């Protein structure tokens, strides 16, 4: 069914509407001329002749007006052989156009504004295809605003063509209901400008970014953009660490990218509050990697803060054990 509709759609795109206008004019001419000729040669009034031509061209053919003379029959055959196929073409074209407009609505070609909780990606930085691939494994809708097509597609990925450096283009994005916006423009400067524009329009929007430099990271943080790490220092430190511990980088990847478990942020259990973190974590179910409070992350090795009210913990969780947010990939494990 889907395939047929697709076929239809591409057929419509190819067919120019000019052809349809020509066909419509031709049908009208045949009906008028055929109706008049029929009236003249078969001895009926011209309105009856017109009526006969229309019932014939539309293949209704009631049979209340029929040709009686040989000339009348010749006219009838000519009208049938020319008007009926053209009429069929016109009807098919109208039906196809209706289908096309519906298809466009279904496919969201006109608008992505109806998408709720979409992840919006601005730009086409080199890492965007990989990000899209990773997002495609989840169920949430993804909207990409970029000048060139992401040349990748899944059911949940929508492309809006436009200049992501241009805040006026944001009007085409479902920002008000977005889950988050990811800044994927080519340079730190572009991302910073985009962040300023977005923050101005939507003060509460979740904006994610991975700037290259630590200075831009700080500027973005001041704007309330979630910057967890800057890319250049991250790379440098992973590489430097690899000199002492060659597998440190792999460990990081393993923590972040494993199929079977993932890292989650959860509120600490109520009985931890007031305790030393290093002691409290021993009672945690599973692996508690760290504590988050006052916007800082504590590993609980040398610094061992007292757990405050409202603190969160970073937990390493096996996918099937989680009850909070079942991972869509978890179903197959």
């Amino acid at each position, binding site marked *: 069914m889907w*395939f047929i509709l697709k076929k239809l759609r591409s057929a419509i795109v190819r067919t120019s509407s000019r052809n349809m206008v020509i066909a419509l004019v031709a049908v009208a001419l045949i009906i008028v001329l055929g109706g008049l000729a029929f009236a003249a040669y078969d001895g009926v009034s011209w309105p009856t002749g017109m009526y006969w031509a229309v019932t014939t061209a539309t293949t209704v053919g009631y049979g209340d007006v029929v040709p009686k003379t040989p000339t009348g029959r010749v006219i009838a055959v000519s009208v049938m052989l020319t008007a009926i196929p053209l009429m069929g073409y016109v009807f098919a074209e109208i039906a196809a156009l209706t289908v096309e407009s519906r298809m466009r609505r279904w496919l969201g070609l006109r608008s992505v504004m109806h998408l709720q909780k979409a992840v919006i990606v601005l730009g086409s930085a080199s890492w965007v295809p990989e990000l899209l691939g990773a997002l*495609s494994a989840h169920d949430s809708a993804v909207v990409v605003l970029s000048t060139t097509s992401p*040349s990748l597609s899944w059911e949940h990925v929508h492309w809006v063509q436009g200049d992501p450096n241009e805040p006026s283009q944001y009007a085409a994005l479902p920002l008000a209901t977005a889950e988050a916006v990811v800044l994927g423009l080519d340079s730190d400067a572009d991302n910073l400008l985009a962040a300023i524009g977005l923050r101005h329009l939507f003060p509460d929007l979740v904006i994610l970014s991975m700037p290259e430099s630590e200075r831009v990271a700080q500027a973005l943080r001041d704007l309330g953009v979630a910057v967890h790490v800057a890319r250049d220092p991250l790379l440098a430190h992973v590489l430097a660490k690899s000199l002492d511990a060659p597998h440190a980088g792999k460990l990081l990847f393993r923590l972040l990218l494993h199929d079977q478990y993932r890292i989650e942020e959860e509120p600490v259990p109520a009985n931890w509050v007031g305790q030393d973190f290093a002691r409290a974590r021993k009672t945690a179910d599973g692996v508690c990697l760290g504590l988050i409070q006052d916007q800082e992350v504590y590993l609980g090795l040398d610094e061992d803060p007292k757990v405050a009210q409202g603190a969160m913990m970073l937990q390493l969780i096996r996918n099937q054990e989680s009850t909070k947010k079942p991972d869509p990939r978890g179903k197959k494990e």
Partner: protein
Amino acid sequence: MPIDDSTWSVSGVRVAITGGSEGLGWAMARALAEAGAKVWIGSRHLEKVERALGQRHSQDWELAGGTLDVTQSESIEQWLSAMIGRYRGIDVLVNNAGLGMRTVNPHFFEDPMPFWQVSESGFRKVIETNLTGYFLTAQAVVPRFLAEGRGRIINITMNHATMRRRGFSPYGPSRAGAESLSHIMAEDLKEEGISVNMLLPGGATDTGMIPESVNEEFRRTLLPAQIMGPPIRFLCSQAAAGLTDERIVAVDFEDWLSRRN
């Protein structure tokens, strides 16, 4: 001897198939996805990818993909990056995307076109896809394989007779070139733990490469595309570990296996 495929587990194996939305590519994608592999398909046309994904028999199949033009290295890079993003890696590349004779001569069965009548653009287009495309895609994937110290490339090819058939220019030369390239790739990668093998159906196959105009009698002699299923599962499984520079003909696969055992 019926093929015992229970020993060939491909569960979780991440396979990229160029031209995986129809024909032999789709037959292989289906066979692998059905057996639990994570399959990533590419096609020049988005509608074809979507259509293929719409034909999943089960929602449990790990099957996804994106648009891919194997003649453009940028497109290949994006396609692979997205696969890495989704599956976090790649284990097997199946070079399958190809243009058939139809693109040059729609009536190549009834009316073979001698080489001097083949258009320059038609010749270049087929070579660019069937030969350069294999090269570019493998070139993009191999650094990732080298970093892992393992990986497999499977190049889809054709009968030798097809490479010499009258009127089969440029399809024949493009496949012959890809076959030579496969041997060289296998040699180049021999020390690296990366295997390169060839797989071919072993006869004309019922795919979009065959013109619709061929008569019913001929159509009945065509091999079903599904013939690629068992050998591709074998080549992606542990059973084919260490196997390299082989040329496996799908119609003779059972014989080949029994000779091997």
